[in-house]
């Protein structure tokens, strides 16, 4: 037995000599996704660093600016939340830019949260619109507006204000703006976010046209509009009024 073992070892040794390199040793990797849960302990140094920031955040964010009588959430083709946000754009843009805005749009994906029934805080608005998107205005011909409408209808309809239309086979038809049929030769003041007018969501058709920009944050516009509704004794809400009808 001993003899046999020795022979085996020697054979292996000779084999090793014959081979120029050592057998590759694989690297092993043990992987894990460590879940950071509610029960996890907290680091006191990090809590201490964070405290002045969170105290101040909570003070700002917990400020109540109005009251919602309904749960407000986004939905296609039309929702109370989408109508509320675009009504805000229309009203606040008209006041800020000193124009009579004809229609306003918000990209569906740009609405990032919802407003539950009850007190509405500044924090809710931040969740709704965390990005620093600006409200901007463009003077667009009815022809370009139609191209834009066709594009966003293809993508599944966006919330809108000031405009009413019917979708047939993913195409906008029967378009009314300010209560009158869309005139392709006429110019309209259209409110969007700067994200969209700079070509976001593939809205390249808007890029060639001058943009009126006052650095007005959409989030600030929402806060002002909600405060305005509250001052007028109104809840934070918007009606569903068949702005977009799907008719396939």
């Amino acid at each position, binding site marked *: 037995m001993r003899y046999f073992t020795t022979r085996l070892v020697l054979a292996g040794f000779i084999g090793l000599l014959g081979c120029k390199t050592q057998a*590759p040793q694989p*690297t092993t*990797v043990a992987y894990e996704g460590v*879940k950071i849960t509610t029960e996890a302990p907290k680091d006191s140094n990090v809590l201490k660093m964070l405290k002045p*920031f969170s105290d101040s955040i909570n003070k700002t964010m917990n400020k109540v600016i109005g009251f919602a009588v309904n749960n407000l959430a986004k939905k296609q083709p039309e929702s109370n939340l989408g109508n509320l946000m675009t009504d805000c754009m229309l009203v606040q843009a008209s006041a800020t830019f000193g124009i009579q805005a004809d229609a306003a749009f918000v990209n569906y994906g740009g609405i990032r949260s919802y407003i539950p029934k009850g007190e509405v805080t500044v924090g809710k608005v931040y969740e709704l619109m965390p990005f620093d998107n600006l409200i901007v205005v463009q003077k667009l011909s009815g022809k370009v507006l139609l191209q834009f409408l066709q594009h966003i209808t293809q993508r599944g309809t966006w919330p809108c204000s000031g405009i009413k239309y019917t979708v047939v086979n993913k195409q906008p038809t029967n378009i009314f703006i300010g209560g009158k049929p869309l005139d392709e030769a006429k110019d309209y003041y259209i409110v969007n976010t700067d994200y969209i007018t700079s070509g976001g969501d593939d809205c390249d058709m808007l890029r060639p046209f001058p943009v009126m920009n006052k650095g007005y944050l959409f989030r600030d516009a929402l806060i002002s509009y909600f405060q305005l509704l509250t001052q007028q004794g109104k809840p934070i809400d918007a009606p569903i009024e068949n702005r977009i009808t799907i008719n396939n």
Partner: protein
Amino acid sequence: MNRRKFVADTLKTGLLLAAPNLITNSLQAAPKGKQLTILHTNDVHSRLEAFPNDGSRNAGMGGVAARAAAISGIRTQADNILVVDAGDIFQGTPYFNLYKGEPEIKAMSLMGYDAATMGNHDFDAGLENFATQLQHANFPIVVCNYNFTNTPMEGKAKPYTIVQKGNVKIGIVGVGIELKGLVPENLYGNTVYMEPISNANRSAAYLKSQGCDIVVCLSHLGDKYNDDKVSDEILAKESYDIDVIIGGHTHRFFEQPRKYKNKKGNEVLVNQMGWAGIQLGRLDYNLFNEKARNNTQASTIILNKKI
């Protein structure tokens, strides 16, 4: 002379005659390779506090204080710990709107991050702001395919860095995503986006030439796309010297790291940990790299779920 000693002596003599450089490997190499634990996050998006306990899907998850405690806990279990982030540190909670990234960077410094790369949302308050917030960072920003000449970030990021953890020398390179069409032009300013693969390969080759045991690539390219847009998958397959890609941007929770063969036939890992700091990625390496094995054969990686 007992048999064991005889065999050992014969081996030594034989090897000394045949291939002197093999002796160190065959007789001194411990059964264990070099040990390295990589802890990683991506797309934390200013989630400094845990998600609110409002019954939503991620309620109570995440938060920097809990992540810091988790990292400290792991530091007591293992030596040689590397902590990295693959970008989009900023944007997504009111903290960012109000403080522009200061608490995010301070938290990462307290947690002992070793390096991070830049994501597209890290441009969101402008490059000048990002550069300003770096005064709170005690770790470097690595990105090899953004040229920041004539921007506020000039001289404030580097293509790669080298970190020593115990006996492990780690090279870290960063790659960033194409900015045009994703980040408003007024935010990235004069930043020039360069092709990521050749730049990452050049940096990785340099890091290997400097004797790094492992080259880690922090990537904000995204894991993979349906078209030919450059991704971690494409980078892994087109790479030569990268050992592991810590990815981001696409917010994917990988069940396990993905494995690809690089241009040399070696295996490369890609991992990504979703977003918001809900999970901390952990990779425990028992490392036998080319240098340790001293051969030119393709290296393989055996993956095991940690239990």
